[in-house]
């Protein structure tokens, strides 16, 4: 540590754009971005609002913009992001700010539903459990996407979402792709319809910011490319 204090700039206030406040935060050997925000709320300014729950990268509630990059703050060490012993923290991009560092996640979750990102079961408790072949190509595709924690980091990173608020976005489309490849899901038609309309997968320009910043190292960009292929195949099939 070069200095015992960090210069932390927090962007506060819904509506009041760029209402920045600067705090001096004691530096420690082991400190996450979330630790820094918590210290400010507990020791310097109790009116600061922010969101977290698990603190171990499971719940997806703590994402913020850190020096212009969307990050899960509970698993981001402050030393990784410090720039000349200073850091700027703001609310997640592409979502409405409720207060300070808390954003309204409703549009993000609504789009999961709009993308048919829910299980489409066809069986009842009377049926045997659907067999899952762990080695099938489809299962390997599905497995690649199931660790999503709904943190909205990819959604905040995506410039296509920024330019078109209707666009379903990388996380919802990744979930749609995962379900499309899940042998237990019977909603193929519904999913392909949902992801192929004007808010759907064909908006994506494969710029890859989602894949570059997903904290769980998932690959929404490639999943969306998969949806582009499947929707096109199904479209050509219908035309023929």
């Amino acid at each position, binding site marked *: 540590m070069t200095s015992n204090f960090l210069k932390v*700039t927090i*962007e506060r206030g819904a509506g009041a754009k*760029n209402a920045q406040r600067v705090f001096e935060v004691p530096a420690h050997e082991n400190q996450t971005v979330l630790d820094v925000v918590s210290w400010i709320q507990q020791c310097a300014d109790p009116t600061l609002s922010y969101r977290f729950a698990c603190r171990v990268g499971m719940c997806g509630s703590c994402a913020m*913009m*850190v*020096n*212009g*990059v969307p990050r899960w703050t509970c698993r981001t060490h402050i030393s990784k992001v410090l720039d000349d012993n200073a850091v*700027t*923290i*703001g*609310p*997640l*991009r592409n979502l409405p700010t409720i207060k300070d560092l808390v954003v309204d996640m409703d549009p993000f979750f609504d789009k999961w539903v709009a993308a048919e990102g829910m299980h489409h079961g066809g069986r009842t408790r009377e049926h045997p459990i659907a067999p899952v072949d762990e080695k099938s190509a489809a299962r390997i595709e599905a497995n690649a996407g199931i660790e999503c924690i709904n943190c909205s980091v990819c959604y905040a*990173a995506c*410039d296509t979402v920024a330019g078109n608020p209707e666009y379903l976005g990388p996380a919802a489309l990744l979930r749609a792709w995962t379900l499309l490849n899940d042998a237990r899901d019977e909603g193929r038609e519904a999913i392909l319809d949902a992801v192929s309309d004007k808010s759907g997968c064909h908006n994506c*320009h*494969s*710029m*890859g*910011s989602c*894949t*570059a910043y997903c904290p769980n190292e998932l*690959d929404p*960009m*490639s999943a969306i*490319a*998969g949806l*582009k*292929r499947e929707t096109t195949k199904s479209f050509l099939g219908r035309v023929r």
Partner: protein
Amino acid sequence: MNAANGIVSRAHPLWLAYVLHRLSGIGLAVFLPLHFWVLAMAMTAPARLDAFLAMSGAGVAKLAEFGLVFLLAVHMFGGLRLMALEWLPWRPSQKTLAAGAAAASFLIASFFLLKAV
């Protein structure tokens, strides 16, 4: 600085490729009508075209035509790259290999080009 609007922080290779593709696409859209207008003079005003061609041997016009070819090359390879990326389901290791092969062939091609001029 506004923490939510760092452009530089988004400047990873795929994003840069996307920006390059968009800029070259817009450049082409602006440039091509001009290009066709000049070519159309062959039909409508051959004398003016000859005067223009005499002038185009050197300087600005040559540079501009070089720009057009350059934009087309950049945009075409950008577009082919996207189509290959999206329509062929690559594994990540295959992507690295393909990018490496493209970079190597580009280097070799540039080397021959430099030898030629």
